């Protein structure tokens, strides 16, 4: 059910992918700021998003559909703004907004713990670390390397081709009723309403996730804990050794200049 009956979904998808590539190419930083190119890029980006919305499937309820649309638009638009913004600080802030959108998508998908963990761990801890480093290392003003990009045309085309192929295969996957049927439930879970709501949508979903994590995946949890410790020690070791190496470099350079 598309508003333009003469266009097949495949053609809409191809148009949307092309518009996305052109929009990214126009919006990526390229030295000087050109207002006309910027507006054209925004219009093309909106067209690409509209194409993807039209080819998307209709969800069950209107409310669910509206919420999913809003949070996924927030995630994708802020994600695009992350890569086209010249200032890295604004980039990080757009990325935080994108994380909020992703958390919303995860909540719509029924992953309550992960939605909250994305906000707390990513936006609260990892992103703040990025901002600390940016504030330590970023010179005042826009650096020249923030105002140019490497091969914007080729990169935009590569990303759009990847997106087009992925959308194509996802569309074929979802159209095939036999490919991704849900596996048979446990016999105990098949009661009148437990058949409708699966394990991941139960009321005590977070408790069940914890049980799964510390039951079946206990060894992996331990390995992840060791990994965190190793990363911590490794980061400290790199700092400690790096300063010594930096001193050596300076001494070498000074010695070379004297000679």
């Amino acid at each position, binding site marked *: 059910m598309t508003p333009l009956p003469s266009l097949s979904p495949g053609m809409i998808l191809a148009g949307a992918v092309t518009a996305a590539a052109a929009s990214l190419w126009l919006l*990526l930083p390229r*030295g000087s*700021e050109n207002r006309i190119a910027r507006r054209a890029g925004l219009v093309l980006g909106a067209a690409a998003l509209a194409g993807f919305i039209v080819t*998307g*499937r*209709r*969800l069950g309820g209107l409310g*669910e559909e509206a919420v*999913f649309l809003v949070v996924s638009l927030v995630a*994708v638009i802020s*994600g695009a703004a*992350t*890569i086209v913004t010249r200032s*890295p600080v604004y*980039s990080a802030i757009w*990325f935080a907004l994108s*994380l909020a959108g*992703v958390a919303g*998508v*995860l909540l719509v*998908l*029924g992953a309550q713990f*992960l939605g909250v963990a*994305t906000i707390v*761990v990513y936006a609260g*801890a990892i992103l703040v*670390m*990025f901002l600390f480093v940016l504030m*330590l*290392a*970023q010179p*005042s003003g*826009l*650096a*020249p*390397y*923030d105002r*140019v*990009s*490497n091969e914007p045309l080729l*990169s935009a085309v*590569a*990303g*759009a081709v990847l997106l087009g192929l*992925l959308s194509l295969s*996802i569309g074929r996957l979802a159209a095939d009723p036999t490919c*991704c049927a*849900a*596996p048979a439930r446990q016999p105990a879970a098949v009661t009148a309403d437990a058949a*409708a709501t*699966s394990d*991941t949508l139960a009321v005590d979903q977070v408790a069940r*996730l914890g049980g799964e*994590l510390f039951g079946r995946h206990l060894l992996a949890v331990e390995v*992840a804990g060791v*990994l*965190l410790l190793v*990363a911590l020690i490794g*980061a400290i070791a790199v700092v400690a050794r*790096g300063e010594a190496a930096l001193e050596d470099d300076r001494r070498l350079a000074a010695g070379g200049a004297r000679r």
Partner: protein
Amino acid sequence: MNPLLAAASTALLHNALIVGAMLFALGLVGILTRRNLIVMFLCAELMLQGISVSLVAWSRHHGDFGGQVLVIFVLTVAACEAAVALVFVLQAFARTGRLDAAAWQGLREATLARTVDHALPASDASPPQWPRLSTAGVLPPGADHDSLEREHV
């Protein structure tokens, strides 16, 4: 599972997978094209977000927790990666004074062309108007006021 519910589940899976693919593609474009090391890491995190959305969508579709458990480990590895990578970025900054990936192009393959920056306009951004706050308290001794302020971010 009745057919109507199965169709709705497949539609949600389809849409969420598309959103994940879009986030992944955006992160890919960013990591290919941006030159600021920190923005490149942000783009890598954006790709991880796309993967997380896809994994949770499959988890919802199949009704088991495998995808969500994987996303928890993705979060863990992303935290480790950010810690170690930011240390490397800071060390690189201490050596070159720039957050530019092209500052390290001496490490490229011998057959690749050198990245050359052509002349750029000095700065085309109009200076932003920050709000002026009234002074509260006293300045700490020895603080050079002007050097602490940023004109741009």
